[in-house]
């Protein structure tokens, strides 16, 4: 008498996972950017060789010169990889600490604002304000209160990377469907229950998207902070500044490339963390 209408055997394959790992999908994802990369290298060589033929060798070194002169230790030249690695480590540390602070403050700020319209109206303008103040204008103030060392670099990271965390978290917390909210309301769920069981999980994809943007900005903050707050161990920004002022072009490029790799790596890592955390259930609207 009881008729079950759809197949009652459990699914054994997860279709999204099998598609994601297929080679054709990987080729589609990685192919085009690699082609662009190859094109950039070709153009770079052409430009460098042309400038060399004009006798202007310091402007744009060829890619392999950068690798040989700066990344690889040679007999005559001084290896700078140790300097670079130490600076990379330091900048990573500054960026990650700044990011962690941004995440905590940003989520807390957004949760507070999500609790009442009037709180949101009182506090949101300050998030926008922070985003709008030019960091450069704050440098003397930060320097005189926090000193010209790590703490100030970290503060710059926080100031630069805070806004995406605040706005994304707030958006995610508020983007709960009305019927879902009413489902909880009909059971007499408390504000706290709604926050922890509905709003927060619902906000996770937006929070991770914000985290990825903030992570990239935190790296920018770490490098920019170096330019102003030069006491203590040098980060990548200080190295870049030093190499530039001494016209050590290959070393300068090496430092820039290291900084870029740091930015990209952090962006990718936080993208991966996001996918591990919410990719299981989250389907971006297509």
């Amino acid at each position: 008498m009881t008729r079950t209408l759809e197949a009652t055997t459990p699914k054994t394959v997860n279709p999204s996972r099998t598609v994601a790992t297929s080679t054709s999908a990987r080729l589609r994802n990685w192919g085009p950017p690699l082609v662009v990369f190859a094109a950039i290298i070709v153009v770079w060589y052409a430009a460098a060789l042309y400038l060399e033929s004009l006798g202007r060798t310091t402007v744009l070194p060829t890619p392999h010169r950068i690798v040989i002169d700066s990344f690889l230790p040679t007999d005559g030249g001084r290896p700078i990889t140790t300097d670079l690695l130490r600076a990379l480590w330091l900048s990573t540390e500054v960026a990650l600490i700044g990011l962690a602070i941004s995440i905590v403050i940003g989520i807390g700020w957004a949760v507070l604002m999500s609790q009442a319209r009037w709180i949101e109206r009182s506090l949101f303008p300050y998030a926008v304000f922070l985003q709008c103040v030019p960091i450069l204008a704050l440098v003397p103030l930060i320097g005189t209160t926090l000193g010209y060392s790590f703490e100030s670099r970290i503060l710059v990271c926080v100031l630069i990377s805070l806004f995406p965390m605040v706005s994304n978290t707030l958006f995610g917390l508020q983007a709960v469907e009305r019927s879902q909210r009413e489902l909880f309301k009909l059971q007499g769920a408390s504000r706290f229950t709604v926050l922890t069981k509905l709003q927060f999980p619902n906000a996770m994809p937006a929070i991770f998207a914000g985290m990825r943007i903030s992570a990239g900005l935190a790296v920018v903050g770490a490098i920019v902070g170096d330019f102003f707050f030069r006491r203590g161990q040098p980060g990548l920004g200080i190295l870049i500044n030093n190499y530039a002022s001494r016209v050590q072009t290959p070393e300068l490029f090496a430092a820039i490339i290291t900084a870029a790799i740091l930015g990209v790596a952090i962006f990718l890592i936080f993208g991966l963390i996001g996918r591990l955390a919410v990719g299981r259930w989250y389907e971006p609207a297509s």
Partner: protein
Amino acid sequence: MSTLTLTPTAVSTDVASDPLLDFRNVAMQFPNGTVALSGVDLTVKRGEFVTVVGPSGCGKSTLLRIASGLENASEGTATLATKRIGYVFQDATLLPWRTVQSNVELLAELNGQPKKARAAKARAAIDLVGLSGFEQNLPKELSGGMKMRTSLARSFTLDPELFLFDEPFGALDEITRERLGDELLRIFVEQQFAALFITHSVAEAVYLSTRVVVMSGRPGRIVDTFEVPFEHPRDPDLRFTPEFAKLCGQVSHALREGHS
């Protein structure tokens, strides 16, 4: 194939139970001035399956929202004689990060039921709607019909005495819709709850219910009420009988009259 039974049920003698839902002269005017309902009298008792049909925007959802307490009527009284209501929304309203099992457990969880009890309850409800084997699937891995079944299962976990359905099958294709209707009726016959069911489809209204209430365009008033004489359990082939067609015709007619 069972044969059709078209014995009229003796509605008038069934006065033993008090209404679970009682609307007296209910009107609804929203703060912005929109009048959604006016002068609505309606009762739903245990064992009654009342459907409401009416043109879009006439106030059907508002009616359910008032019945559930999500909204307060601006005039008249709406009395709910039970706390155990099941509200089924037009969309499945599943939490996408929870599995079927965990979604079905949600209401019991919010009511503070212990883990073991609510897990068992959820499994029974999942079984009831024919979703066994899909407990660990996520909503994104389900079809529209399966999502709706999950939503139905969820509403069953608190053993509601009164169900409020807001066009639950509106987004589904006709075949799935009819199948789910049959499933719902099977459970109705088993459990004899009371139901207030909103739909756009006249055939669905007549097939499912013991009583069809026809509403006019906004502001929604009740323009006609039809007792449905077909006995439960109903045969799916009931839909193709002349009596069924005749009643559908009458309801459609009332709907058209009320609309103009």
